[in-house]
C-alpha cells in the first residue's frame, strides 16, 4: 500500500494544558481572596522546618493554609498538623514512580479538601527538587525558594531555571555557616548572576534568625 507523508503544523505549547489549569486555580484563589506561594527547594533544605517556625510565629496573626506536596508519605503534613491550620497532603506517586514536582492538576485535586475561605496566605510546599517544579505553574502569586547553605555556592549557575523564577530566596541554615566552607558572598554573587537583585533573607529555622523578617514579608502579602 502506498503511504504519503504529510506534515501538519501544530504550534502548541508543551505546557499549555498545565498553564490553563494553573490559571483556573488562580481564578479560584483570587475568588477566595487567597495569596498563594509556591515554595520550592532541594530535598532537605528546610522548607517544613521553616514552615513550623512560621506557623508558630504567625498563629493568630495571619490565617495560613498549607498544601503539602510529596512523592510519598504524609510525614510533613503530620509535622504541621499540630498547628490546626487548613492543611492538605498531595502525593504524586501515581506518576512514573512518583512525579518529582507538583503540577496544576495535582494542586487542584487537593483544593477540595481546603477551606480556602478561611485562608489569607496559602503556602504550597512543592516536592523537593531543584529543576522540575520550576517548569510547572500551579496558580501561585509568588515563588519562594528555600536554599540551604549546605548545598554549595554554585547551584544558581547549575540550576538557573528555578533560581531565575524565584521572587524571594530564603537562604536557610545560616547557623551552620561557621562550620562550613560555604562562601556566602560568592553564593549571593551567583544568585545575582541569574536573578539580579532578587529579594533574599538569611534564615535559620533552628535559631529563628530571619524568621521574623520572613514572617513580615508573608504578612505584607495579605494586603
Amino acid at each position, binding site marked *: 500500500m502506498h*503511504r504519503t507523508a*504529510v506534515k501538519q503544523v*501544530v504550534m*502548541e505549547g*508543551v505546557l499549555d494544558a*498545565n498553564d490553563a489549569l494553573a490559571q483556573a486555580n488562580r481564578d479560584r484563589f483570587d475568588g477566595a481572596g487567597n495569596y498563594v506561594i509556591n515554595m520550592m527547594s532541594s530535598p532537605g533544605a528546610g522548607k517544613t522546618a521553616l514552615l513550623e517556625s512560621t506557623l508558630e510565629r504567625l498563629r493568630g496573626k495571619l490565617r495560613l493554609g498549607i498544601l503539602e506536596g510529596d512523592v510519598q508519605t504524609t510525614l510533613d503534613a503530620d509535622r504541621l498538623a499540630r498547628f490546626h491550620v487548613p492543611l492538605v497532603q498531595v502525593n504524586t506517586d501515581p506518576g512514573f514512580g512518583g512525579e518529582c514536582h507538583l503540577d496544576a492538576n495535582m494542586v487542584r485535586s487537593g483544593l477540595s479538601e481546603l477551606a480556602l475561605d478561611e485562608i489569607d496566605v496559602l503556602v504550597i510546599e512543592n516536592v523537593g527538587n531543584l529543576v522540575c517544579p520550576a517548569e510547572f505553574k500551579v496558580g501561585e502569586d509568588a515563588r519562594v525558594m528555600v536554599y540551604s547553605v549546605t548545598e554549595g555556592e554554585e547551584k544558581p549557575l547549575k540550576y538557573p531555571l528555578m533560581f531565575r523564577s524565584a521572587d524571594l530566596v530564603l537562604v536557610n541554615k545560616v547557623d551552620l555557616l561557621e562550620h562550613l566552607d560555604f562562601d556566602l558572598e560568592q553564593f549571593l554573587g551567583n544568585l545575582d548572576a541569574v536573578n539580579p537583585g532578587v529579594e533574599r533573607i538569611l534564615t535559620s529555622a533552628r535559631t529563628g534568625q530571619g524568621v521574623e523578617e520572613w514572617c513580615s514579608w508573608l504578612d505584607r502579602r495579605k494586603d
Partner: protein
Amino acid sequence: MHEMAIAESVVRIAGQHANGRRVTKVYLNVGHLRQVVPSALTFGFELVAQGTSIEGAELALEQIPALGKCRACGAESQLPGFPLQCRDCGGFDLKIIEGEELYVESLEMEE
C-alpha cells in the same frame, strides 16, 4: 526529571493532532533557557510513546539560542550563558526575546 513530564505532554499533544494517523516525526522547539537535556527527553519520549500512535516516531529537537534585548540601551545580545548580560552596555536588565520556547512545532504523519 522534568524531561519525562515534558515527554508525556509532547506525546499527548502529538496524539491529539494525529487523530489516529501514524506519526513518523515530531518537531519540538526548545529554548536554551528551558534547561532541557536532549538525551533525557529523547529517552523519555521513546518510553512514553510506546503503545501509542506515536510509537517509533523520531523526535526532532530544534534548539533555540537565548536572545535578549537590553531595557537600558535597547541593544540585542546573544546570551550563551549566565549571567545574562547586555554585550553593549553590560546591563543585566534584559527582556528575553528568544530562548524560552517549548512547543510542538509540527508533525510528520502517514496519510
